[in-house]
C-alpha cells in the first residue's frame, strides 16, 4: 500500500462521489482517516468536520452542525448516534496500526457493518467504505468516480451541503 502523496490518485474524491451518490443529506459519516485527511474531506464529503473526543484519536465524524450553531460539545450531549450511516476506513492504517485494526474490527462487529465499497485504482485498494445500511457492494474505480464527481458535484449548487463547511479553516484547525 502506498502512502498518500502528491501523485497517488485522488481516492478521497472517489470516496466522496460514492458517499454523495448513496447517502442522504442528514447522514453522518464516521471517517476513520487521519486528521488532516478528514479536514480536507470537507470538500469531498460536502459536510463539515467535527472532531469527536469520544472516540479518541481514531474516529472523526463528519456531521452537520445543528442550526443554530451550538458552541457546546454535541458529542457530550449525546447528539451523535452510536451507529453511523457510513464508515470510511483506511486499509493502510488497518494493516500498519494494531490499535486502529482492533478499533475497526470492534466497530464492524458492534454495529453489524457491511462493506459497501472498495475505492480502488487498478490493483490497489485505497479505502474501504462500510455501511450500517444495505447499499450492496460496489467497486469504485478512482479515475471514473473522480470524473463523475467533477461533472456532477464540483459546482456551487451541489458542492457543500451546508454553509459551515470550511469553518475548520477559519480557526486554523489544521
Amino acid at each position, binding site marked *: 500500500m502506498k502512502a498518500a502523496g502528491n501523485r497517488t490518485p485522488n481516492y478521497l474524491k472517489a470516496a466522496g462521489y460514492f458517499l454523495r451518490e448513496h447517502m442522504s443529506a442528514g447522514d453522518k459519516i464516521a471517517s476513520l482517516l487521519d486528521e488532516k485527511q478528514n479536514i*480536507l474531506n470537507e470538500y469531498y464529503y460536502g459536510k463539515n468536520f467535527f472532531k469527536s473526543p469520544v472516540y479518541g484519536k481514531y474516529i472523526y465524524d463528519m456531521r452537520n*452542525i445543528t442550526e*443554530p*450553531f451550538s458552541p457546546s460539545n454535541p458529542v457530550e450531549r449525546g447528539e451523535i448516534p452510536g451507529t453511523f450511516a457510513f464508515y470510511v476506513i483506511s486499509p493502510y492504517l488497518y494493516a500498519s496500526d494494531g490499535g486502529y485494526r482492533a478499533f475497526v474490527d470492534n466497530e464492524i462487529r458492534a454495529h453489524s457493518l457491511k462493506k459497501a465499497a472498495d475505492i480502488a485504482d487498478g490493483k490497489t485498494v485505497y479505502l474501504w467504505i462500510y455501511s450500517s445500511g444495505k447499499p450492496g457492494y460496489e467497486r469504485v474505480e478512482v479515475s471514473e468516480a473522480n470524473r463523475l464527481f467533477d461533472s456532477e458535484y464540483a459546482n456551487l449548487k451541489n458542492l457543500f451541503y451546508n454553509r459551515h*463547511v470550511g469553518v475548520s*479553516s*477559519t480557526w486554523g484547525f*489544521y
Partner: protein
Amino acid sequence: MIKIMRVKKAFFVLAAVAVLAALHFASVVSKMPNKFDNEPSAGAFGGIRLHYLNVLNFDFSRGVSSPEGTSHILDNFFKSAVSGTHGLLDFAHWYIYSGIYDMFGIPVNEFWMIMAQAIVMFTGVLIMSFLVYKVYDSGIIALFFLAMSSALFVHHSINFYIIPVNTFYEGLLLLVLYYYDWKGPSARARLFLLFTLLVNSASGNVIKLPLYAYFAWSAAYKRDGYGIVRSCGEYLVKRAANLIVLFPVGLAVAAHLYVYKRIGDSNLGLLGWVSQKVGIGAPMVSRFSAFGNTISSMIFNKTWQWWVFVVAAVFYALAVIRGRRKAPLLLFPFLYYAYIINFEPNSALLPLLVLMSIGSAQMFVMARGINRQGAPEIPVYCLLHDIYRLYDRGADSIGYIFHEGGGEPYT
C-alpha cells in the same frame, strides 16, 4: 532602421515572455497537487463557503458575536470573509475564483483552483518584471527576473497558500508607485495608490510595507535624484498631503487588530496567525534573540537562501559603491531581509528575488559601463578588479573604494 530594430527587440521580448509563460504553466501542471492534500487546502473551503452565506445579513439584535444569532462568524458573510489566517483577503480570492468558474460551468475543483493561483501569480510576477525593466532599463535583467521568480514561485508556492495572490497585489502596488508623481499626483493616481495600499495592507503583504517604501523611493530617485532624507523632505514634509498614504495602511492595520481582538479568539486573522507563529507582544529582547537564532541557523545550517542573499548583497554592494551616490541603499537590503525572514520565511522569497534582481541589474549596468549618454564608462571586468584589489590591498582597500576608486577609469 531604428524602427526595425525596435520591432525586433519587442518581438524578442514578447517571444521570451511567451516561452517563460509556457514553462511556468507546464511546470505548474507537473508540480501541482492532485487533491486537497495539505494544510492550506482548507483555506480554499473558507472562500467557497462564502457563496453559501447571505451577504446582507446584519441581524445584530442578539449581540455582535452571539453564537445563536446571524451575526455570529459562522453565519455572517463579512466576518467569515475577513477571518482568514493570512489576512483580510485570504478567502476573497477563493470566493472570486470559485464564483467565476461556476458562472462559466468550469469545475470548482483542485486543478482549476490551483490554475487560478498560477495565472494570478504569473501575472503578478510579470508586472514586477516590467517594473524591473523600467527601473533598471534592462530587458535582459527583467526577463532574468521573470524566469527566476516564476520558477521559484512555482517550486515554492504551487499549493493553496495565499502567496500567489499576494504577488499580484504587490505587482499592482509597485506599478502604481512607479508612476506616482509625489510632487503633484493626479486625483486618479492618488486614488489608485490608496486603493492598492489598502489591498496590500489588508493582505499578508502588510509586513512588506518597508520594501514598498524602498521601491517608491527607488522609482522617485530615478526621476528626481533625491536621497532618502531629502525625499522625505520634498515628498512628505513640503507636500504633507502625500501623508494621506498612511490612511489606508492605518485602516487596514486597525482592521487586522479588530479581527484579532474582536471577532472570535486570538487565533483568528493575520495577527492571530502571527501570534501563533512568533508571539505578539513578546518582549523586544526575545524578538532580537529570535532574529539572532534565525540568522545563525541560516548560516550554520547553510540555508541556501542565506548564501544566495550574501552573494547578491556583495555584488550589490560593489555595484552601489561603484556608483557612490546610492550608498544609503546598502543598508536596506540587509535590514529588510532580516526583518521579513524573522516573521515569515516564505514571504522572504519575493524580496530576495527583488534584491537579487536589483543587485544583478546594478552589476550588469555597471559592468556594461553604460551611463546616461550610453557612452562606455567602465570595462566589463571592473567588479572582479574591485574584488582583486580588496584582496590585494587589505584594509586600505576599503578607503580606496569609498574615497577614490568609484569613478577611476580602468585600462
